[in-house]
């Protein structure tokens, strides 16, 4: 492992890795590419603990992994990437830690979107913050609104940052909104009307959900979105150790499943089929012998 790191210090080796990565992206692009990937970036603190470094450094390493992953996704043509940055449950960690986390969100957002040379500008990222805005401190809220405004016109990958978010909170606000909007005709509230009230209303259906660090729970993330037709992947590495190769393998496995399920007859609703020819019955009285 150390040897590999040493070899990678040489410019030629770095160039070689870059070259292989480019080829991998070109290859993947000729196949099916998921529209929407959601990630629980879990394990930053455990990563820091296991290496005896400060927690903050673990979070910084996690942020770098996020940038790398998001870049790869947008080069591949993934339309939406949703990440879990801050859970409402995180407020349990106490004032000091939440302030730290919020500060990190603030500086990270600034790093991604400030200036003409920023990633958001270069790759055309449209950044959105999903979650309960009432819980965000006012100054951060202003920053967020500014960044959303700045990137609103971009046409590249949509980066959804969930902060502070839980899926139940999302569903609860959607129930509230849908119940209020639909009170003229409560019976007429449809699933699609409900869906349009969720934070992820504009996003494509979720194709892949990745959770790192070996935990096999959803922890209140994308519950509504992931129960039908999504591939849920529990990966064992801590988030800072999650490599691009891991991501490629997940996308390949998803792609393989798409290919093999293409031939099978899917569950399709009747109104999506073309209409059959007119149905007639032979009226016996009209039938004359000649």
């Amino acid at each position, binding site marked *: 492992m150390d040897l590999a790191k040493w070899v990678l210090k040489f410019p030629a080796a770095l160039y070689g890795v870059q070259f292989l990565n480019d080829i991998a992206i070109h290859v993947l692009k000729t196949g099916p590419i998921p529209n929407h990937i959601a990630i629980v970036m879990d394990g930053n603190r455990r990563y820091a603990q296991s290496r005896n470094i400060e927690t903050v450094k673990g979070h910084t390493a996690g942020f770098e992994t996020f940038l790398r992953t998001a870049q790869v996704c947008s080069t591949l043509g993934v339309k939406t990437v949703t990440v879990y940055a801050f859970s409402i449950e995180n407020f*349990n960690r106490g004032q000091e830690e939440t302030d730290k986390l919020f500060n990190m969100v603030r500086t990270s957002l600034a790093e991604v979107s400030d200036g003409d040379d920023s990633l958001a500008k270069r790759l055309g990222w449209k950044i959105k913050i999903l979650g309960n805005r009432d819980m965000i401190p006012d100054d951060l809220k202003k920053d967020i609104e500014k960044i959303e405004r700045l990137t609103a016109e971009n046409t590249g990958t949509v980066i959804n940052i969930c902060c502070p978010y839980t899926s139940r909170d999302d569903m609860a606000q959607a129930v*509230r909104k849908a119940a209020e909007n639909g009170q003229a005709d409560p019976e007429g509230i449809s699933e699609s009307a409900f869906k349009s009230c969720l934070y992820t209303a504009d996003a494509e259906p979720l194709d892949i959900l990745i959770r790192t660090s070996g935990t096999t729970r*959803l922890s209140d993330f994308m519950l509504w979105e992931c*129960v039908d037709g999504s591939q849920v992947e529990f990966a064992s590495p801590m988030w800072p150790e999650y490599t691009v190769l891991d991501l490629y393998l997940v996308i390949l496995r998803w792609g393989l499943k798409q290919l093999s399920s293409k031939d099978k007859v899917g569950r399709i609703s009747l109104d999506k089929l073309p209409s059959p020819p007119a149905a007639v019955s032979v009226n016996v009285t009209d039938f004359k012998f000649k």
Partner: protein
Amino acid sequence: MVDSATQSGTVSGFFFGIILKFVFALLAVVKFVRSFYFQSTYRVEALTLSPHKTPQIIRNDVTKLSKVPRHIAVILDRKQKHVEGGGVEGLLSDVGEVAAWCIGAGASELTVYERTGVLKSLPLQDVYNAIEDRLRMYFGNSSSATFKIFNRQNDGTKSLGPSAAGSADPKLLINLISESNGRKLIVDVTRVLSDMVAQNVTSPKDITLDVIDRQLKERIGSEPDLLIMFSSEIDLQGYPPWHIRVTEIYCSPANNGNVSYLVFMKALHAFATAKFKLGR
């Protein structure tokens, strides 16, 4: 795939497409070999497992664990009729087996999710009898393994419990749920609440997370502690989204749809070793 390559109109695109096909082929082979390897090791493991159709052995297996889930959920599939263990009969015997393991392991609630709702469409008495028959194979005739079964419908639940009046609380509660108790239930609850708003019984700001939680729990029960899938990949098949918030999810890549005691025990092991640290 070749289509997209010709669309880009380059020779290199064509070659990249061929590489991808090669990678896919490789991946399919790896997948096949892996599942073959897993399944053969699984068979061997299953052989070393003692015959488990007695409660003592199940209890013996779980006493090694530090904790067991109170509420277990399983996702079951109806297999095709001509396959061994297929059809509705196969499904019913699967439910009975899992119920017996749950009682043996000391869990007090079991939720059975079957997407199409075929179990719920059967007469509840038939389902009850089928499970009772299966439990007799484990616990004998003078059975203390009592249970109560709930057919969960969004607009009212039917239940069936032990017939003897004045008997003690049943050992196991069994919920039967299907796809219609999933996303659709949340929309149904929204309709109910919207109706209440329209009639000024409640105001939108009183529709809190807790109110919704209570409404949903009333209809299909609580969130399970452990969700077991018997497929080789995680496929939630439209499971009620509200109810898998922090549920431990278990799925074994080695299994292929068999409702086996080995998978059940492995899931309990995974649950016992999992750490719970909500938001911390």
